[in-house]
């Protein structure tokens, strides 16, 4: 049971990173963005490419950091990937979403995001093939923390949790201490009023996509590190990430983070009660329960 809870928290950190970006976009731009989850795939694959590149350029970078299976090359690759994925999120917005925003309604946006997701996923499949790849073939063994109750954790997972928390802390500081953060929150609160005060809406939108894309890339790399890389990462993580954002309440960054951990916990604890065949339903049962009790999510607010 404790093992399940620990596992849940650890996998939840990945969901949390994905959900934060999603919740910001959903709140700012007012549509359910089905493309967001594909950014995790994009991030994972870009990192794969650069990881191989860096390793072949400077083999010294292939050394692992401590007990982790993360190498220096991969860390660098991840940073590059965060930047590139962020940029591609802005490009997609420019090419598709902005135009539809101007002429269509929320539904069209949702559908367009579905269409773009299909395209991204299959382009990745065409380029990289449909099979499974890994950053590192070595199996990272779990360390036994305690024997009774049996508790085993992989160093990778702790590292992922740690870095995820750091990223969330950085975001928190930006949102609460910097002018830029205030501007973001102001726009989220009331876009027209914020513009009256001189905030450039276009730039804020770009910033939201950049932050969302970067966090998604990090989530994708962490997922690839602790599981495996396939073109369908986006499809598989779509629902847990959505569940996390909704449970936390759209628009609340802290809610998304909490939601991520909650969904992770629920998915792992579910096995105690339900046969594993029903696992995919668990995020939704959580959503249903939370929304029945609090129709706007845990920290969300009713929209004006």
């Amino acid at each position, binding site marked *: 049971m404790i093992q399940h809870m620990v596992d849940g928290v650890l996998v939840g950190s990945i969901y949390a990173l994905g959900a934060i970006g999603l919740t910001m976009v959903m709140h700012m731009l007012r549509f359910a963005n089905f493309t967001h989850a594909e950014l995790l795939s994009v991030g994972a694959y870009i990192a794969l490419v650069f990881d191989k590149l860096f390793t072949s350029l400077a083999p010294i970078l292939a050394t692992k950091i401590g007990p982790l299976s993360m190498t220096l090359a991969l860390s660098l690759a991840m940073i590059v990937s965060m930047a590139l994925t962020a940029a591609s999120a802005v490009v997609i917005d420019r090419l598709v979403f902005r135009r539809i925003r101007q002429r269509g*309604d929320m539904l069209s946006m949702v559908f367009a995001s579905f269409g773009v997701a299909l395209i991204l996923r299959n382009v990745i499949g065409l380029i990289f093939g449909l099979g499974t790849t890994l950053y590192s073939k070595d199996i990272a063994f779990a360390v036994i923390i305690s024997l009774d109750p049996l508790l085993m954790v992989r160093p990778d997972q702790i590292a992922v949790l740690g870095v995820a928390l750091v990223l969330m802390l950085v975001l928190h500081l930006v949102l609460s201490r910097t002018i830029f953060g205030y501007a973001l929150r102001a726009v989220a609160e009331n876009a027209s009023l914020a513009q009256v005060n001189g905030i450039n809406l276009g730039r804020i939108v770009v910033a939201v996509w950049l932050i969302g894309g970067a966090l998604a890339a990090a989530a994708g790399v962490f997922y690839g590190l602790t599981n495996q890389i396939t073109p369908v990462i986006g499809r598989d993580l779509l629902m847990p990430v959505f569940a996390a954002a909704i449970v936390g309440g759209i628009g609340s960054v802290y809610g998304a983070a909490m939601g991520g951990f909650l969904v992770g916990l629920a998915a792992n604890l579910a096995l105690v009660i339900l046969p594993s065949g029903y696992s995919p339903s668990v995020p939704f049962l959580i959503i249903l329960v939370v929304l029945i009790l609090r129709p706007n999510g845990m920290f969300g607010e009713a929209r004006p």
Partner: protein
Amino acid sequence: MMGLLSYLVFFSTVASILAIAVLGLNLQWGNAGLFNGGVAAFFGAGAYGALILGGTPQEVHLGGFGLPFGVALIGGMFAAGALAWIFGRLTLRLRHDYLAIATFGVAVTFENVMRNAQWLSGGAQGIRGFARPLQAELGAGLSYNALYLAMVAALLILTYLFLQHLSRSPFGRLIRAIREDEEAAQSLGKSPAKVRLTAFVTGSVIMGLAGGLYGGFYAFVSPQDVLPILTFQIWAMLIVGGAGNNRGAIAGAFLIWGAWTASGWALSKFAPVEAQLYAGSIQYILIGSVIVGMLLWRPQGLFPERLLVSHSGQNNRTYKPAGE
């Protein structure tokens, strides 16, 4: 020529069945503004319900009551309606995107249950032992398919007429009034929750009808028939055809299903042999591009006689009264 006719009959049957489901969705979204992300669940409830009631007894799973097809169909519709009623009561007051995800969750759970509860549904292997209605008497072949198409087309027309009538009736005005301005309607003594639930359940019953016809046509249903891609396909049909417009719904069904099948056919005919293996991925990219392209070109759909005003937050759309 006979081959072409036979194929078109088959294609039209499936497209018409899907069109019935799109009509049901149009009632929920186009009229009542309810974002139903779980179309597959209600469609599936209709299919499974009809096949369980109408099939031959099986030791592997429940069912085999051997009821006549018409009765089985109604049973399936009832199952869909019951499912909609239970979950509608719980979730309809949620806002748009939350409702979408909650209903999506219903569909995922439905598929899960059908996949795992082998005593109920045959599990991943699906329902066995269903014989198509009157197949023994009429034999298989073009004439049978043509008769089935006639039945489906008749039901499609009936559903269309029913929904048109509903749309013009006081109840139709009530649904739209509640969608426009819930508080005003409440102040006049109407109960929005009840009205929305009625619209939701009615739409779902129509989807159940489509599901039952689907199951009957293929004489088989399995969890693979109720995956999220089905929900996506039905929605795409509604969006492309024009939400809020029943004719648009039917046109959208034929168009999207036509594009979906034609793209596969075209790729197999014209792509070079080496590329055939990648045709599947290419087809998804094409479909994604068609959808995005349509939305960029005509975001209101092909038949935009009615544009929708949804809940607050959107102020770039106008509403035109129903002329259809």
